[in-house]
Each structure stands twice: as structure tokens, then as C-alpha cells.
């Protein structure tokens, strides 16, 4: 084999690695010159070695260089003001594309940036304290349950005395207290019981007086309190002699020793600070549930602190295997423990953001198809511009500018939506954490800017690259002959994919959305405005006595018609698994709502008995038989009403058998479909059971605020250490309605976007395919083709692509549904898929109709002249 042949083969092979444009333009000349060179070397008797390897290296190195130049060459032409003006004009000229693409990108951008911002607040908030970023939380995590173990007073004492990498260690717990103002009012407040070191950690001096000191925590020390600025202003009228005055919190009167400055709400959202009593002889794993925080020592990082804590944890594990074998102590950013997050949570952040960002990319891909359709219509323009000297890079840059304007406008709208939602959240959040900042984080705006450019690249540059290049010259030829450019298989493929996605995705989005929403469409069978709900909190040992006394006092209060103690409030049900014996066969398991209620519940809620009996007071006796009452939905859907009484139910995973003694009416009804009513099993609260800490009270008055005040006053008078947090039952249902409305709006927007983008995509693609053939239609007419036959031919071709797309879409939807065990189409597959097929077919016909009609109107003579 001659040197020329070897060099030629090498050049041809290596040229395959070059950018196609370079290969096309320079490949032949380059190969020819390499052959000349090889021939010269042979002719002059020079040795091929080392020329051949040098040539090979040069071919490879220049392949890389050519790609780099090709990539940078595209961005070299700058975007001028003229490009931007032209881009704005294009937005106005193609309002359909602007609105459709803009809406889609804006919604996707709002979702992606909203999610990013939310993650930022949870994972990376700025703690507005001196060196706030050095504040850390320390907590034990149970390796088996993956939950925090907060009974860590013993650990706190060890950590405080031994840790070198974390300083100013403090512990606190948040407790509810009755703020009692003589006989006038009782207010439910959250108090921070905190070690005095908490103030050293925050490094905020008091406005007046002093903060807590170690002496305040000594046994027998006088009870003191530090109050917040708001409390000082509203309750004490900003009295200058506040220090030394008293505040009654629960059963104890505390002397105010200091007032903290405005906006100070450390450690979370607190306005009252009491010394945390510390039992230095506490046993491991016992004591109150506390949060521990500290400050990274000078030169220490989160990782070095974690390393020290891990060593300490291992030692404790060895010394106390009974309590510490399962525990993993962690040093976390300060805010993590309050959001229930561990170190592992942080590492999932990037992945989650990427997953959500895919929404934007999917939307952008859809918009790119629309832009591609428009680009195809402008190929003649590009061809002429190319012929007049515009480089490919110049045309691509201009299209990038056009897309950038669209994505910037849409991105700005998306950011505005997020900002409005944030303002609403700020309004609704009454006691936010002190670090909570309801403004868009700068990183989110930067992220949005990056996404705007990415969206512009997807929607502008990719269609531009696809439709320029070698095609530009070919298109010029077509343009000269007056024919539309040929778009080939890519176009057909796009139509099929677009139709398939529309048919598959839209029904699934609607089905999932509707299945979520319809479950919220339930109405209470009672009038929520007549009820007050309340949660009791206080020392466990006092609760049984308090409850017994409360039953008596509430019964005597004329404001209240009835009351009942329950484990779950109406409107806030708990789901659980039960098994029920069905004759002699294997027990049936089912997911139902469960609640433990006292014997007066059905009377209080005015729920009628359907069969059997309701609960009676003797059922509450600890030694009484275990009985349950089920509702109508349970009887109808799970067991059948016949012979249900007397059967036995078990609460899973394991419980005693409870006999069904009665059926009551449903407490909530669904106006849409009775099948949506959730089956519920009520068991009776036995005397002294701790579960019944919620009270629901039927009122004799319409003034819920006054009733709440009365309830708080009664509870505080029975036991000042027991607090009661009240909420009108109507507020619970209002919150549910708000949730329903928000879900409805979100789903409607999502479905509209998907539908709009899909419809616009199918329309644009099909109409352009047919538009390519208008001249052909005219010529065929001129040559004697019959109009109906021709029309049928045109439609047949357009519809063939749509039919393939529909078939693919249906198969895709059914496959997705099957892989999700029917949870994708939720049983609505038939009607939804049929409707979507109908819509897509109509869009296809409409899209083909317009261009076809234009074809029939073209003067055949003019068409022939064009040929």
C-alpha cells in the first residue's frame, strides 16, 4: 500500500471527526493536499516516518480545534439593538406563538423558581444574627426510624462540657402557656424555655434590663421572664418601669427582668423567654424534648464539628448501648432541626431542583417545535439573507435574540407570579420563624436568569441550527423556484411525537388532577360555624383530672350546647388500616378514616344513627367491652349493610378485636359521588385515655371569638398549667376550601398549558406540512385533478401522521396507566382518551383546511408559471 493511499485513508477517516460544515467545505481540498504531500515525500525519497504520525496527531488535534471554533463561532456575532427590536416585532407579528409559548414558559418558570426559592429557604436561609451562618443545631437521629430523638438533655450536658468545635451551646424547648391577665383574659402563647447561654449565642443585648443568667436556673430561684418588644408595647404600653413588673404564665407569676429589641424572636418565633430547668442527674434518653444549638468555634467547619461529635457519639454508644446504640448525633445548619431535616436532606437538593427544572425543559422543547414551525415558514427569508452574506452564525444569533426576548418576558412574568405568591404567604403566615424572609432570594433570580438563557437556547438556537446550515443553500434553490422548502422526516417525526404526547399526557394530567380535586369536594353534614375546636396541652399527669372537671364545667356553661372529646377533629381525619372478619373467610383489609371519640360525639355533631346503637357513657368504662361504630360509607362499601352488626374489626398492625355495635350517618357527604365518601370507623375513648386531647364544642352563640375566650378562661381556671388552642371549625373547612381552590387553579393552569401547547404544536406542524403543498395542489388542479379527490389526498397524508401519533399516544397512555396500576388515568381512560383523540383530530383537520383552501384558490396558470 502506497504512502499516498495510507495518508488519504487516514485523512478521510479522521475527517469524520470534524464538524460536518468543515468537512463539507474543506475536506476535499485538505485530503487532496495531503495526497500531494505524501506523493512529494515518496518522490523525494524522504521517510514516511515521522511524517505519518505527525499528520495523524495534527488531524486529531485540529478536529477538536474545529469543533471549538464551530461552537465559539456561533456566539461571536454580537446581538445588536436592531436584533432586539426585530425580536419585539416578531412577538407582535406572531401573537399566537407569543401567547402560547410565553404562557407555557411563564408557568413553568414560576413552578421551577418557586420550588428553587422554597428549597433555598429550607436548606440555605440567611440567619439574621451576628455570624448567623456559623450557628448550628445538634441532634440525635434514630438510625432505625430515621427520626429525631429529642430527649437529649443528658447528651446536651455531655456535649456542652466536652465539645471544642462548637461553643455557646444552648438548649431550649417550646411550650404552650396561658398568659393570664387577672380575670380579664387568657391568651394562648408559646414560650421558649431556654438556657441563659441562648442569649450569648444570639449575641443580641436586651433593650431594657437584662437577659437570663445562670442564677435564674438554680433550684428555688425566683421565677423570671424576659419579654419581647411587641409584648412590652402591647401589654404594658411600652412602660419605662417594666423591669420588676409581673406576668402570669400558667400557674406561676414571673417577674420581668428584661425586654428584647424589636424583631428579636430567637430561637424560632418566640416572644417570651423563661429559664430552662435542668436536672443534672437526668438519665440518658429521658427528660424533656429539647432542641440544642451552638456556634462553630473559630476555624471550625460543619464537617470538623461533625467529626468531633461522631467520635463523642461512638464513645457514648459504647458506654450506653441501651439508649445510644441506635443514635447518630448530627451537627446541622441552624435551621435544619426546625424543618425536620437531617444532613442527608441537603444532598438531595440538587437532584430535586434538576427534576423540577425538567418541567421547564419539556415546556421549552414544546415551544421549540412551535418556533421550528415558524422558522420553517421563514426559510426563504434566511436563504436570501444567507445569499446576501449573512453567516449562519449571524442568523442563529438573531433567532437566539428573538427567543431571548420571548423567554425574558415570560421569565419576568413567572418571577412576578412567584413574588405575588410570596406576598400572599407573608400575609397568611402569622408567626414566621425569625429567619424567614419572604423575598425572592438573589440566587433564585440568578437561577431564573440562567434558565431564561437556557430556554432561549432550546427554543431559539436548536431550531435555528436545525433549519440553517447546508439546508440554507438548498432552500435558496427552492425559494428561487417559488416552492416551499422540503422538511423531510424530521417534520413527520415531530408531528407524530407532538400528537402522541398530547394524546398521552393531557388525559393523564386531567385524570390525576381531577382525582385529587374530587376528594376535596366533600361538604360537612353539620354547620361548621356552630362549632369551636380546641386542642389541650399540659402536663400529662394533670390531664385526666382536668378533663373530668372540664366535662362538668363545660356542661354547665350556657354558651356551649354540647361538647365532645376526640382524638381527631372533624375535617382533619387520620387514615389507618383495619381488617374485618367476613364470615368464615380470610379477613378483609381496608384503608379507612379512624377516630377515637367520647360517647357524646354523635350527639354533639348531630349525626343520626342508621342502625344498631350509638355510643353510651358506659362504653367509656375501662373494663367495658371494646366496641366501634362505623359510618354509612363503611357499611355500603366495605362490608355491605346486611349482618354487619356484631362483626369484629381490628386496627392494624395489631389491636384487640372491636365489635361493631352501630352504623351512623356520614359526617361528611360528597355532592359529586357517594363513592367518594371516606369510610370511617369510630372507637370509643376509654376513661383516662390520653388520645382525647381535642375538644369540639357546639355553640349556643354566633360569637366564636367570645366563645373561645370563655373556653380559655374555663380551662385556665380548672388548671392554669393546661393550655387550650382554639380554632373555629369553620376555619378548618375554609382552609380546605382554600386548598381546593388553589388546587383547582393550579390544575386548570397546568392542563390549559399542556392543552394549549399541544394544540398549538399540532396545528403549527400540520398546517405547515399542508402549506408546503399548496402549489402542488394548484398545479394538480390545473392538470385536471378533481377537487374532492385532491382534497381527500391532502387530508389523507396529514391524517396519516396524526393517526400514527394518536395510536402511539394511546398505547403510551395505556402503558403508563398499566405500569402505575391504573393510577395514571384513574379509571377515566375511556372518555378522556376519546375526547383527546377527537380534539386532536379536529385540530388536525382545521390545521389542514386553511392551507388546502389557499391551494384551491391559487391561479393554476400562475402556479404553472412558477414551475
Amino acid at each position, binding site marked *: 500500500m502506497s504512502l499516498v493511499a495510507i495518508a488519504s485513508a487516514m485523512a478521510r477517516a479522521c475527517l469524520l471527526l470534524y464538524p460536518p460544515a468543515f468537512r463539507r467545505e474543506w475536506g476535499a481540498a485538505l485530503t487532496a493536499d495531503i495526497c500531494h504531500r505524501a506523493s512529494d515525500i515518496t518522490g523525494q525519497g524522504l521517510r514516511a516516518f515521522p511524517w505519518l504520525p505527525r499528520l495523524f496527531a495534527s488531524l486529531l488535534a485540529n478536529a477538536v480545534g474545529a469543533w471549538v*471554533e464551530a461552537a465559539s463561532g456561533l456566539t461571536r456575532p454580537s446581538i445588536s439593538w436592531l436584533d432586539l427590536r426585530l425580536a419585539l416585532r416578531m412577538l407582535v407579528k406572531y401573537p399566537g406563538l407569543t401567547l402560547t409559548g410565553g404562557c407555557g414558559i411563564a408557568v413553568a418558570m414560576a413552578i421551577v423558581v418557586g420550588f428553587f426559592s422554597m428549597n433555598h429557604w429550607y436548606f440555605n436561609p440567611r440567619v439574621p444574627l451576628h455570624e448567623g451562618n456559623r450557628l448550628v443545631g445538634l441532634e440525635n437521629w434514630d438510625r432505625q426510624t430515621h427520626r429525631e430523638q429529642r430527649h437529649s438533655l443528658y447528651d446536651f450536658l455531655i456535649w456542652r462540657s466536652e465539645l471544642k468545635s462548637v461553643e455557646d451551646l444552648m438548649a431550649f424547648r417550646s411550650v404552650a402557656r396561658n398568659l393570664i391577665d387577672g380575670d380579664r383574659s387568657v391568651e394562648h402563647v408559646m414560650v421558649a424555655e431556654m438556657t441563659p447561654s441562648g442569649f450569648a449565642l444570639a449575641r443580641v443585648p436586651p433593650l431594657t434590663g437584662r437577659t437570663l443568667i445562670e442564677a435564674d436556673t438554680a433550684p428555688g430561684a425566683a421565677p423570671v421572664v424576659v419579654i419581647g418588644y411587641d409584648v412590652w408595647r402591647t401589654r404594658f404600653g411600652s412602660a419605662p418601669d417594666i423591669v420588676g413588673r409581673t406576668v402570669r404564665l400558667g400557674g406561676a407569676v414571673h417577674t420581668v427582668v428584661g425586654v428584647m429589641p424589636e424583631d428579636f424572636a430567637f430561637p424560632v418565633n418566640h416572644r417570651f423567654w423563661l429559664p430552662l430547668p435542668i436536672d443534672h442527674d437526668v438519665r440518658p434518653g429521658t427528660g424533656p424534648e429539647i432542641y440544642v444549638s451552638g456556634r462553630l468555634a473559630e476555624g471550625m467547619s460543619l464537617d470538623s464539628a461533625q467529626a468531633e461529635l461522631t467520635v463523642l457519639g461512638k464513645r457514648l454508644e459504647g458506654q450506653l448501648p441501651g439508649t445510644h446504640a441506635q443514635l447518630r448525633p448530627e451537627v446541622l445548619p441552624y435551621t435544619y432541626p426546625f424543618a425536620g431535616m437531617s444532613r442527608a436532606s441537603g444532598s438531595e437538593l440538587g437532584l430535586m431542583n434538576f427534576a423540577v427544572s425538567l418541567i421547564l425543559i419539556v415546556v421549552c422543547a414544546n415551544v421549540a417545535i412551535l418556533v421550528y414551525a415558524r422558522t420553517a415558514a421563514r426559510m426563504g427569508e434566511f436563504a436570501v439573507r444567507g445569499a446576501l452574506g449573512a453567516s449562519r452564525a449571524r442568523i442563529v444569533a438573531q433567532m437566539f435574540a428573538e427567543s431571548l426576548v420571548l423567554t425574558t418576558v415570560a421569565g419576568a412574568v413567572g418571577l412576578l407570579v412567584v413574588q405575588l405568591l410570596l406576598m400572599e404567604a407573608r400575609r397568611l403566615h402569622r408567626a414566621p420563624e425569625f429567619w424567614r424572609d419572604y423575598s425572592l432570594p438573589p440566587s433564585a433570580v440568578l437561577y431564573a436568569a440562567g434558565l431564561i438563557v437556557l430556554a432561549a437556547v432550546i427554543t431559539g438556537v436548536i431550531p435555528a441550527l436545525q433549519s440553517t446550515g447546508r439546508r440554507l443553500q438548498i432552500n435558496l434553490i427552492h425559494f428561487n423556484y417559488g416552492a416551499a422548502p422540503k422538511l423531510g422526516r424530521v417534520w413527520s417525526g415531530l408531528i407524530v411525537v407532538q400528537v402522541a404526547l398530547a394524546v398521552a399526557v393531557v388525559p393523564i394530567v386531567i385524570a390525576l388532577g381531577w382525582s385529587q380535586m374530587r376528594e376535596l369536594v366533600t361538604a360537612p353534614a353539620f354547620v361548621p360555624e356552630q362549632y369551636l375546636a380546641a386542642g389541650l396541652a399540659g402536663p400529662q399527669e394533670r390531664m385526666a383530672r382536668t378533663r373530668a372537671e372540664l366535662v362538668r364545667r363545660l356542661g354547665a356553661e350556657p354558651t356551649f350546647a354540647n361538647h365532645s372529646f376526640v382524638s381527631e377533629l372533624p375535617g382533619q381525619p387520620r387514615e389507618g388500616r383495619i381488617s374485618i372478619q367476613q364470615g368464615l373467610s380470610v379477613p378483609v383489609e381496608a384503608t379507612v378514616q379512624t377516630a377515637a371519640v367520647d360517647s357524646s360525639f354523635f350527639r354533639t355533631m348531630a349525626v343520626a344513627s342508621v342502625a344498631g346503637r350509638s355510643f353510651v357513657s358506659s362504653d367509656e368504662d375501662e373494663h367495658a367491652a371494646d366496641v366501634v361504630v362505623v359510618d354509612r360509607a363503611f357499611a355500603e362499601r366495605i362490608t355491605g349493610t346486611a349482618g354487619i352488626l356484631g362483626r369484629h374489626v381490628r386496627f392494624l398492625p395489631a389491636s384487640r378485636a372491636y365489635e361493631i355495635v352501630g352504623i351512623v350517618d356520614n359526617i361528611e357527604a360528597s355532592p359529586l359521588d357517594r363513592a367518594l365518601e371516606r369510610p370511617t370507623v369510630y372507637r370509643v375513648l376509654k376513661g383516662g385515655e390520653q388520645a382525647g386531647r381535642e375538644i369540639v364544642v357546639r355553640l349556643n352563640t354566633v360569637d366564636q371569638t367570645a366563645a373561645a375566650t370563655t373556653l380559655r378562661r374555663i380551662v385556665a381556671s380548672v388548671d392554669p398549667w393546661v393550655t387550650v388552642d382554639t380554632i373555629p371549625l369553620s376555619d378548618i373547612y375554609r382552609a380546605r376550601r382554600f386548598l381546593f381552590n388553589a388546587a383547582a387553579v393550579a390544575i386548570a393552569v397546568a392542563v390549559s398549558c399542556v392543552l394549549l401547547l399541544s394544540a398549538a404544536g399540532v396545528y403549527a406542524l400540520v398546517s405547515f406540512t399542508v402549506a408546503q403543498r399548496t402549489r402542488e395542489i394548484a398545479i394538480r388542479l390545473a392538470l385536471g385533478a378533481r377537487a374532492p379527490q385532491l382534497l381527500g389526498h391532502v387530508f389523507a397524508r396529514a391524517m396519516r401522521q396524526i393517526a400514527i401519533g394518536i395510536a402511539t399516544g394511546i398505547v403510551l397512555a395505556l402503558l403508563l396507566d398499566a405500569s402505575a396500576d391504573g393510577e395514571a388515568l384513574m379509571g377515566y381512560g375511556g372518555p378522556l382518551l376519546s375526547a383527546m383523540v377527537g380534539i386532536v383530530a379536529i385540530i388536525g383537520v382545521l390545521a389542514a383546511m386553511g392551507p388546502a383552501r389557499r391551494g384551491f384558490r391559487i391561479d393554476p396558470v400562475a402556479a404553472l408559471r412558477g414551475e
Partner: protein
Amino acid sequence: MDGPISLRAVELHVLLSVVDRPRHGYAILQEAEERTGGQPGFEIPTLYRALRRLRDAGLIHVVDGPAADAGERREYWEATALGRKTLRAELTRLESLVAIGRARIGHSPSGGRK
């Protein structure tokens, strides 16, 4: 062109070859070899990338080849007015560098070789 550009060695060789008369690609390489004693420091693929860069920057353009070569389908390159101007600027830059270098070597403590 917005301002003076500094040329790579291969680009300088191309401009030097095509500034007085049109040459095709291989001829440019051959001339560069002559100038450098057979060590131009680049191979044919590098030359073609340089040709593309110079063409895109408007420094060279394709012209008709000599009548004798009419049978061969080779592209002959010639410097444009901008190419000449750029070459002149580059040579001036190199001259000033050479002058500075000479002056420094001449005045260095070790004397250097002249």
C-alpha cells in the same frame, strides 16, 4: 475589524505567502517550508483551519488561479486589503518586539551574543 489582531504563526505564514500573489493551500505550506528551512511548525490540517479563520475574518479571499492551473480544481487565495493592512500591522509589531529584544540583549549584564 474592530482593532488590531495578533496573528498566530500559521496565519502569519499564510498571509506572507498570499500577499504578493495568489497561492493554493499546498503551495502556501511549501513556501512556508522554504522560509523556515523545512520546519514551518504546522501541518496541512492546521493550515486549512487557518485558511478558514482568515477567510471568515475577511483577511484573505478566493481568486481565480493562473491559466496554467485551469484544469485543477484548486482554490487560490489572496490577501484582501484588510489582510495586507493586518499583515503590515503585525510586522510592525514584530519589528518593535525585535528591536526591544535586541536592545535588551545588547544591554544585558552578561552581554549576550550579538
